[in-house]
């Protein structure tokens, strides 16, 4: 039986991972990952300003203030960029540090009255979520988890409701606009959701670690799968697994729980990088090799076709000629010959190599294609 504290920490972490993966997938697809970075930093100013104006330390006012600040950061950077005085990267790099710096400064100046301190803002305190609990259906549940659950639900409903539009917007904003889907408005809604999710998550894992849950699982999903649904699925699973592994590692080595969970999201990425059938490095290597082999088989066919039924045939259409005339190594020539025979395009009679019917057709087709390309 897992003790309730562990359960609370794990539950909170998993909600962070879940909401992050849902929103983050669309940010990554739209190429707005760094907007997520900007938003998660800028919300700090929003939270502090909301507190200074209304005295609300949490709850809807705080969330609204934070969301406004987050979206304001992105829109502010876009407005700066539209003035053409500076590029997008510089605009982003100017706006969100300024807002974050202002937020941190205000926290510093009001340290005595505000429940926030700057280390919490940056790193979160998921290890202490069990200190602040509420009763839900007779169960003791961390406040942070309740907020996160509500936000996750909103995220899920939004994505389910606008599934078609979001997918279209991610891949072809031009077409989405032409079909009357208002991609600008939907993009804005996505930014608002990102900000709201960041607000809910930052007390648990801090603004920078939230970025790991937002982006890394989504990138992992993108590496593994081509479809949006499968991508989100992979992102959610890899985020949840990372929370479990990170928690276990943190307890084992007695290190920061939030940091360890965020770092563990990298494990999924490493696995995907190495082993993904779609864009993993291993798969890419295998693919490169097979492409190279195909190209060499084509060269072999062209060579045989060129010398077929000529005087030079007994000399050129032999394995030795491949080594001497094409400059192939023994091993390469062997590999290509085996591949060609396996495909049934080359027949071997003693020392002589012949094209089969299929091989001749392929060689002719290839020659025609080269010719056409040459004319063009």
């Amino acid at each position: 039986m897992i003790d309730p504290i562990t359960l609370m920490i794990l539950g909170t972490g998993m909600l962070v991972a879940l909401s992050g993966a849902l929103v983050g997938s669309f940010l990554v697809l739209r190429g707005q990952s760094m907007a997520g970075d900007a938003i998660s930093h800028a919300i700090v100013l929003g939270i502090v300003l909301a507190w200074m104006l209304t005295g609300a330390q949490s709850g809807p006012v705080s969330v609204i203030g934070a969301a406004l600040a987050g979206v304001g950061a992105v829109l502010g950077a876009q407005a700066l960029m539209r003035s053409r005085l500076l590029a997008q990267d510089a605009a982003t790099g100017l706006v969100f540090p300024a807002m974050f710096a202002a937020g941190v400064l205000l926290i510093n100046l009001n340290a005595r009255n505000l429940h926030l301190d700057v280390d919490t803002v940056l790193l979160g305190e998921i290890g202490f979520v069990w200190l602040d609990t509420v009763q839900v259906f007779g169960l003791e549940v961390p406040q942070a988890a309740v907020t996160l659950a509500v936000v996750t639900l909103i995220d899920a409903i939004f994505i389910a409701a606008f599934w078609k539009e979001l997918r279209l917007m991610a891949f072809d904003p031009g077409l989405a606009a032409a079909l009357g889907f208002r991609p600008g408005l939907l993009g804005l809604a996505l930014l608002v959701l990102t900000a709201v999710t960041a607000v809910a998550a930052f007390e648990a894992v801090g603004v920078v670690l939230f970025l790991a849950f937002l982006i890394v699982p989504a990138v992992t999903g993108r590496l593994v799968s081509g479809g949006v649904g499968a991508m989100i699925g992979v992102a959610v699973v890899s985020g949840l697994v990372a929370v479990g592994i990170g928690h276990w590692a943190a307890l084992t080595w007695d290190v920061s729980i939030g940091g360890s969970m965020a770092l563990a999201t990298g494990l999924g990425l490493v696995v995907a990088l190495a082993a993904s059938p779609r864009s993993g490095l291993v798969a890419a290597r295998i693919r490169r090799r097979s492409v190279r082999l195909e190209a060499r088989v084509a060269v072999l066919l062209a060579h045989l076709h060129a010398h077929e039924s000529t005087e030079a045939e007994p000399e050129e259409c032999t394995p030795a000629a491949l080594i001497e005339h094409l400059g192939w190594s023994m091993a390469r020539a062997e590999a290509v010959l085996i591949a060609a025979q396996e495909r049934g395009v080359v027949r071997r009679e003693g020392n002589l190599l012949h094209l089969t019917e299929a091989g001749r057709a392929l060689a002719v087709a290839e020659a025609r294609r080269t010719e056409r390309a040459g004319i063009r």
Partner: protein
Amino acid sequence: MLSPTLVTVALAAAMIGILAGVLGSFLVLRGQSLLGDVIAHASLPGVVGGFLVSGGRGFAAVLTGALVSGALAGLSVQLLRRGAGVKADAALGTVLSLFFAAGVVLLSVAQTRSGSAGLTVFLFGQAASVLRADLVPMAGVGAAVLLTVALFWKEFQLVSFDPVAARAQGLPVSALETLMTVLIAVTIVLGLALAGVVLMVALLIAPAVAARQWVRSLSAMVVLAAVLGAASGGAGAILSALGQGVATGPVMVLMACAVALASLMLAPGRGVLARAAEQRRRRRELRGTQVLAAIGGLSADHGNPAYATDKAMLDTYLGADSGATLVRLRDAGLLREAPPAAPGGATPRWELTEAGRAKLAQSSEARE
């Protein structure tokens, strides 16, 4: 009044400001501002790792560690982009957050060791953490960085503005880019203790963006960025040292960003306000030319150079109220009011002066 600590802090901050201004200029021109953000965040595990390995918060250990992890971060971004085809922004965000997470984990390990109390200052920077003993090595490394920039000035200039031309001239472009990135990483690492990993990027970008507003050449931009960086860095550090328990990074960054914002707004020529004024001036000039041309055209149609045009007619002709433009043109001596056609005529009439006719001829000539 000027305590030795304050002088130390101000000197260090000004030094960082100079370096950040110089190298930030190249960063901004090459469109890699966010790479600076990534390197800054990614140096956290290196800083803490350097502490763990060497057992102290020594200058050399921290610098080396941060450089190593910064380099690893740069390589990881390359690997994700080229090796796996991840989009640039996603690759940056991934590397930034994972390295920072690693830094947080290492930080929690280090906090169990003795002598680690000063490590969290690297998050936001703390002016008081800069020791007088650090100034000399800092100045040495900083001078080496500036000297390298001076040595490779021509090459850096060409690579920043036109990498294709640089490659065509046979320059080792990727080696030069790597060198620039290394210099930027060194600058970031030097600034960490003051500005912190989270905010360092703004210190690189803001002075460069501000300087770009005022000058046109790279050399002037670099010099001005260094001056602005030094001023906002020094002033910010002093201000934060005067306040109680105020982290240095945010104040320095806010100063630099305020300078950048003011420059974006106020600079002559490129500034937002100057551009708006220029646009207004051009619009007025166009309205003036339109009114002159309309009056001139009507008088030509009537075969009477002294033909006076009724204001109501002019308004209908142009589809807008021409009152303000007419007054402006009269004040410029290009038009004059003519007496009403009939005694008690409803609206005033206007005719071209000599100067107005000359101006009209001039502008129609220019059009041809």
